[in-house]
């Protein structure tokens, strides 16, 4: 298991490598892409794509200092959710968070069919989140 500084060092080296990448490097970049960014990386014949992937990993770690949190919810490819009309929120797998998924499913539980991955107790979690949100709202309105 590589540490974050080791991954950053390694991905920087891969990004700087000229010419063809060895097979082992390609394999490792695929693994790290999944590990760090929580998203797979398609096997390809293009060496530059692996360098691009190494840059994505390096940039993410440099910006956030940690690996992306593993999500419990994932959408099917192509599925796009919009929270409510007039809301600025539009989500695909690229920017979905567990919080957003639960808020959305609390309002539209029938849309669970658009999810590729979700925890078994998603209904209970969504109700809890909705209750917590309503609790916050009523506290705010009482104060007002």
């Amino acid at each position, binding site marked *: 298991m590589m540490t974050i500084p080791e991954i950053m060092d390694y991905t920087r080296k891969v990004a700087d490598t000229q010419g063809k990448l060895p097979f082992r490097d390609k394999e490792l970049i695929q693994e790290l892409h999944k590990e760090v960014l929580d998203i797979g990386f398609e096997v390809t014949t293009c060496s530059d794509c692996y360098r691009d992937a190494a840059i994505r990993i390096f940039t993410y770690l440099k910006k956030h200092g940690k690996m992306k949190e593993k999500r419990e919810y994932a959408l099917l490819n192509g599925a796009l959710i919009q929270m409510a009309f007039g809301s*600025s929120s539009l989500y695909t797998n690229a920017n979905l968070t567990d919080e957003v998924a639960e808020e959305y499913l609390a309002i539209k539980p029938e849309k669970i069919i658009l999810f590729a991955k979700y925890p078994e107790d998603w209904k209970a979690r969504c109700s809890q989140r909705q209750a917590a949100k309503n609790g916050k709202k009523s506290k705010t309105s009482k104060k007002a």
Partner: protein
Amino acid sequence: MAVCEYLIKQDISIDCTDPMGKGVESEGIIINRSDIDFTKCGVNKNKVTSIVLKQGKHAYKVVQGGKSPFNGTQTEMQQSDIANSFNHTVSILILDNGADVCENVIDQLANGQFVVILENKYKGLNKQDAGSAAYQVYGWQTGLSANEITNEKYSDDTKGGWQVNLLEEDAPKSGMFAYVKSSSEETTDYAATKAMIDSLLETA
């Protein structure tokens, strides 16, 4: 059973502020038709409003080089006694060869059914449905399948690579376009559609 009426519903004119330009962008996507979960997709007339893939499935990029990517892509009307229809052709140049390309791409293209999405250079951003001219979907109605695959070793056009023509035959509509209406004032319809298209490519 209703009788279909065919009546023109708008002027045929030119948008002088956003005139049409020819061609398509150099990156498109291809989807195995059987990977699409049609029960979760949405269609409204000539718009495909949502494309959802089956669990674990994703689309593949098609990247073309040169000044005329996907050169040869066209639509042609087919006459028939019952109802005229359209043949849509998508031309793909594959500048690669080898055991992997033949096994993973060419042999599959030769026998499979596909949907291809190309991004027109003309997006129609001034239209009422802004961006509804951008992403053209081929193969949605009757499926694209190969009607010509050639590999000429000394061809200047293909540099020894593969030329593939995919044909969607007898499609009832002249064109289908991916289009997502954004509910947000901050996100344009074009951006929402692009987000949907990009998400088709994600691998698990």
